[in-house]
């Protein structure tokens, strides 16, 4: 798995990242270098700072100190929309879509900026064939073609999660962050969903926060283990599984569970 490390090849590089809320330091110096095209799973106990890390990378929060580089460019301190325009897109743990717009409109909103339509109010959406074609493609990709004109609020939970992924990838970002994409799903839905994620993120760099160990070992090229705001291990699934410190600090029985499931 391990390829020769070339600094310029890093899709995402995090250096000395820290974040404090008042006196409490939640992220306590994280360094990570993620190669383009890798699928990374971030695991760790509740409250370890996984979601905070995502919020720092995606611009929802501003780091207290440290740097985040996207394709070699500093993005820490930038706004979410600036970061998104540079090619990083994220989904949310709690479904975060446009409830009163149809599935099609939800996806098209995600497409518009990347095709350069910006704040246009002098042209009709219905004439923007590239945007509409791309949206139809996305509908097929996330398996919601039959729900095209249904309002997002009327979708089932699993469908809303799929739409969430669709909106996230709509703009064609090269780095995708998924925050617990399978949270709250049944086993069969999860399996189906992992296949979907794999398919739609082909050729992209993927970071995902995940609790389900079966999902983690099935999806990830590498795993980063976050405990108390620090990365205690960042390696291939096999190496992480064998890592004594990880087992001691966090995994324990859940690794055995995952192996028991045939991974």
């Amino acid at each position: 798995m391990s390829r020769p490390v070339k600094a310029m090849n890093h899709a995402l590089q995090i250096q000395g990242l820290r974040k404090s809320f008042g006196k409490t330091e939640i992220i306590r110096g994280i360094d990570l270098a993620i190669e383009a095209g890798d699928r990374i799973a971030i695991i760790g106990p509740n409250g370890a700072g996984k979601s905070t890390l995502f919020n720092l990378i995606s611009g929802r929060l501003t780091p207290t100190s440290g740097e985040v580089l996207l394709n070699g460019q500093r993005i820490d301190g930038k706004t979410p929309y600036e970061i998104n325009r540079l090619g990083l897109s994220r989904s949310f743990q709690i479904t975060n879509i446009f409830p009163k717009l149809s599935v099609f409109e939800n996806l098209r909103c995600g497409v518009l900026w990347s095709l350069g339509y910006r704040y246009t109010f002098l042209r009709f959406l219905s004439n923007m064939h590239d945007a509409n074609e791309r949206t139809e493609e996305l509908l097929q990709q996330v398996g919601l073609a039959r729900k095209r004109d249904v309002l997002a609020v009327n979708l089932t939970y699993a469908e809303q999660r799929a739409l969430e992924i669709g909106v996230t990838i709509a703009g064609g970002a090269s780095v995708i962050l998924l925050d617990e994409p399978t949270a709250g799903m049944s086993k069969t839905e999860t399996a189906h969903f992992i296949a979907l994620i794999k398919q739609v993120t082909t050729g992209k760099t993927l970071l995902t926060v995940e609790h389900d160990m079966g999902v983690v070992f099935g999806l990830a090229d590498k795993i980063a283990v976050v405990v108390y705001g620090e990365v205690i291990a960042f390696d291939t699934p096999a190496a992480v599984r064998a890592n004594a410190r990880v087992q001691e600090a966090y995994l324990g029985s859940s690794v055995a569970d995952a192996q028991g499931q045939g991974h």
Partner: protein
Amino acid sequence: MVTSVVPMQRTRPLNMGRIIVWSLFALLLVAAPHVFTSSLALSMLTQMGYLIIILLSYNILLGQGGMLSFGHAVYTGMGAFIAIHTMNLATQGKVPVPLVLIPLVGGLGGMAIAILLGFVTTKKSGTTFAMITLGIGELVASMSLMFPGFFGGEGGVTTNRTYGNPFLGFTFGPQIQVYYLIAFYCFICTALMFAFTGTPLGRILNAVRDNPERVEFIGYNTQRVRYFAFIIAGFFAGIGGGLSAINFEIVNASDSLSGARSGGYLLFAFLGGATVFFGPIIGAVLLVFASVMLSELTKAWLLYLGLIFLFMVMFAPGGVASLIMMNLRVARFGRFRPFWLLYLGLILTGGVMAVGAAALVEMVYHVQLNSALGPEVGFAGLTLDTSRIGSWLGAAAVALVGLGLLELVRRRFARVWGEAQEAIQAEVKRLENE
């Protein structure tokens, strides 16, 4: 609530339904003064014309952008002032603007004010936005007293619209000619504002309304989306203001810029229906009926208006337009039949209750305001004697009986309605999975 602001637009070159609706709208605007020929009707139709523009512009903020503004009168009022000063300058020959372009001047004026004040206003969304609009509304209203040169003090600014050469033979002296000028602008502006809902900015504005945070993560600066929409709303508000200046030939700050005026726009955009594009058009019609006819009929009209608003918020938060849309949906699935009788029942029992309650209200108002004229008050062709306990008990009895019957019908209605909705849901599911 299952109605979205904008109906789905598939890429069809010719949309017959839409062409028919717009033709009917144009026909209605042209024919209305020939059907309702009294001067009161003409005056009301004229007011409806520019109020449609104003309420639709307000709904760009409220319905499409989720921005609850308490200060829309700032933009209509400033548009009106800028328009009326331009008219006076044109009369003196200082600027060459014909009357037919005055509404555009008002629009540009409203837009300029929106560019200026909107930058601060749209920095925030939600409650903060509402508070800022309230503050700016009060600020501008109080400023009007400090600059009597521009705002004309308590007397306001007056003008004469019949300046310059006639335009295509129109002098715009007669009210009917003013009506057609306003009707023309009404149609164009309505069409433009509808077109706006089908553009990228219009759609992203809906997304900002639904979920501003998510919009930030798909590349859009939500503040800028709100700002641009605010400017566009200011433009159309200014056109509406300019038309009102032409209509009345006077603009008065204490009225045109007042918080009460802003509140009226909010109230009636909501009553008409903020969730459907055409809702505010209904709102504009209701606003004119309320302010012209209801206010003639009774001194307690604001009380009735408040009650209507209250019931609307509680029972039909989507306004009249959403009631229409929901019933059309039921009809489309062929389930409207039982509702004819139920609606008749609701109207009759509700009417009985309203008559009783209104009699009580009128008697109270009479005792408080007009008791010097004697104890008797005329009500719906009857004469009620406020000095006799029987009048009070009678009115109360009518109101209570009406209320009781209304509740009975309402329960039955709610049950049948629920059943119809469930059946429709099942039907929709079945169609989706076909």
